[in-house]
């Protein structure tokens, strides 16, 4: 049996359906829930930094006091003097700076060009062999598996205990990340831009440097800060490859304050807190690019 009821014509003035009523209490709860989540996230991320800061100005006695001392009661610079005057932490910091900046520059130079090539050019096996995936796959293995070959290689070329060895190793490990980040950014940029430049007489390299690089600046900033942080904090390779103050980086220097008999928590806190400062400064310098850089192009494969 078929329904023979004629269809009701649409009444333009009829109500559209049940509209969710505005509930101020629910809105307020929602707002406070959001604040609570943000507050927890802030506490979770900032409290360790605060505790590090606090301990760096405390005596060992205050550090282990029960109940804990939550505010700076009687600050002391003793830990900073021990760390930066009595011990060669300024040297370690300089080494870290050389290695991190060197790695970042090298990884960006090579990674940007490789990312551009992967985003733009057709090359044999592009679709079949998934070259860009295999580049990324080098990040999937635990770094420790490469330690022995790298150690032997650097010993063979007489680069053990040098900052150069660290820069080479870190550049190798950061390159896949840089290539993939930059490949995504370049894929976001229309081909027509560099083609226009080339039509106007520029070379491909010229178009890349003068047109695409300025446009990819947000991506460069975001990639640079990640590379810098990874190189600045790296421990494992530095532990194996470096030996003396000539090349020891900050993470090695800090770990060195754990001795057989005693752990110098005050010095570790002072060095740890001071080691955050250069990265924070760099992050502030590039932050205007950072947010856009993180969201822009990051989802492209």
């Amino acid at each position, binding site marked *: 049996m078929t329904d023979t009821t004629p269809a009701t014509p649409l009444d333009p003035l009829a109500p559209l359906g049940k509209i969710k009523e505005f509930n101020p209490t629910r809105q307020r709860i929602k707002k406070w829930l959001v604040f609570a989540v943000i507050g927890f996230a802030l506490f979770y991320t900032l409290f360790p930094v605060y505790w590090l800061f606090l301990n760096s100005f405390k*005596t*060992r*006695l205050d550090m*282990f*006091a*029960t109940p804990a001392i939550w505010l700076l009661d009687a600050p*002391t610079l*003793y830990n900073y003097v021990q760390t930066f005057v009595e011990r060669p932490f300024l040297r370690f910091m*300089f080494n870290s*700076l*050389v290695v991190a*900046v*060197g790695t970042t*520059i090298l990884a960006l130079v090579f990674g940007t060009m490789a990312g551009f090539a992967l985003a733009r050019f057709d090359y044999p096996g592009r679709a079949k062999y998934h070259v860009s995936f295999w580049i990324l796959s080098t990040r999937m293995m635990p770094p420790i598996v490469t330690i022995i070959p790298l150690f032997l290689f650097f010993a063979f070329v*007489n*680069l*053990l*205990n*040098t*900052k*150069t060895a660290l*820069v080479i190793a870190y550049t190798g490990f950061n390159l896949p990340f840089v290539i993939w980040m930059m490949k995504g950014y370049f894929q976001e940029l229309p081909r027509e831009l560099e083609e226009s430049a080339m039509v106007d007489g520029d070379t491909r390299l010229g178009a890349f440097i003068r047109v695409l690089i300025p446009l990819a600046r947000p991506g460069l900033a975001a990639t640079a800060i990640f590379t810098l942080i990874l190189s600045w904090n790296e421990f494992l390779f530095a*532990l194996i490859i470096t*030996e*003396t*103050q*000539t*090349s020891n980086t900050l993470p090695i220097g800090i*770990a*060195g*304050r*754990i*001795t*057989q*008999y*005693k*752990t110098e928590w005050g010095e570790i806190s002072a060095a740890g807190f001071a080691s955050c400062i250069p990265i924070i400064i760099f992050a502030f*310098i590039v932050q205007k690019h950072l947010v856009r850089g993180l969201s822009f192009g990051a989802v492209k494969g």
Partner: protein
Amino acid sequence: MKRLLSLVGTLVLSAGLAGTALADLTVAVPNGSEGDGLRAAAVDYSKLKGVKIEIVQAPYSNLFERAATAASTRSGVFDIVLMDDPWIPFFAENGFLVELGPFFKGIGTDGPDNDFLSKSVALCRNPYNTGPYICLPYVGNAQLFFYDPEQYASVGFPDGPRTWDDVLTASTELTGDGSSRKYGYTMRAAEGNPVVADFMPIFWSFGATLFDADRKVSLQTPEALQAVKMFLALAKVAPPGVESFGADEVGTAIAQGSAYSAINWPNWVATFEDPAQSRVVGKIANVKMPDGTSAGSSEIGHWTMGISIDSKNKQEAFDFMVWATSAEQVKISALRGNPPVRFSVFTDTELTSQEQYRHYPTLMQAINFSTPRPRHPQWPEIENAFGRELSAAVAGRISAEEALDRSQKAIEAIIAR
């Protein structure tokens, strides 16, 4: 901003990426006061003699691996290694160390002078106390028993503990039900070196030995079981979580006044007597190890310098070692926080009149009555295996009998390799 960034980058990179310094001598040392002391001495020596010395400093656990790898690969990268004394058999029995006899002859003697403590010098011969000299002692450590006399007096031990039973009785009373969070005793029971270092003095004081006269593992004995049971009983009156405690946690508990007795290394005396680091300034006594069924004996823990067989600068290395272990330099090293190895420095009134060196007479006595860790080339592996089972027993995962049984098998397997 771009200019600033590029300027920073250029300056930093132009400061030079490479940096291997060519040195006359390369010395491997641990992090900590021993390594710092020798590094400072090396700077003084360089100024005095014009010899360039490179100091390679590494964490304790990493130093052995580095030195062992360098020795095994015959790289000769280290001329001198500052060795913890239990490492000596590994380096000596594998032929990685230079015999010092001919060098001593070169300076008109047969060996180290008589001012060195005999136990310190005995360590530097392989086999122990009888073989040729293969190193020179630099830092003289032996464990001490630290306790709070006031607290021990309050529970009926005005003269301090004489035996481990005294320690257990007093600690049980002082800990009570643990609600005050003050503990009569605390211990290092973290796996590996910490728990073994804390256990061995108790082990020896009950007449147990790890190896018998034929160098066979001898852990399944009534003496060893008695020692483990005492160790576990002490763990019960110690703070919760001691199975993860190392020297730092134990020292901190004493310095904070939350534990009243423990075995630890003498380096902690300076911390206990420093008002910025301690709540117990002037309150902590240190004595030789309490007795068990046998006389108590501290574990000796010296830092010694040996010359790599592959060093290309053996004579220069020997000259530096002799200079660094002279009475004058050992005293300077003591002022830098390293216990001495010479009688004249232990009894130097300029030092012993100061609060932070008041433990020197006790320490010298402890060294003189100390016992070395079993002299075996595979000791680091043995220590790890033994430490794993002891720590598991302290954590309550296995019984005393199981700990000994498993250790016996694990150590036998290591030796059989």
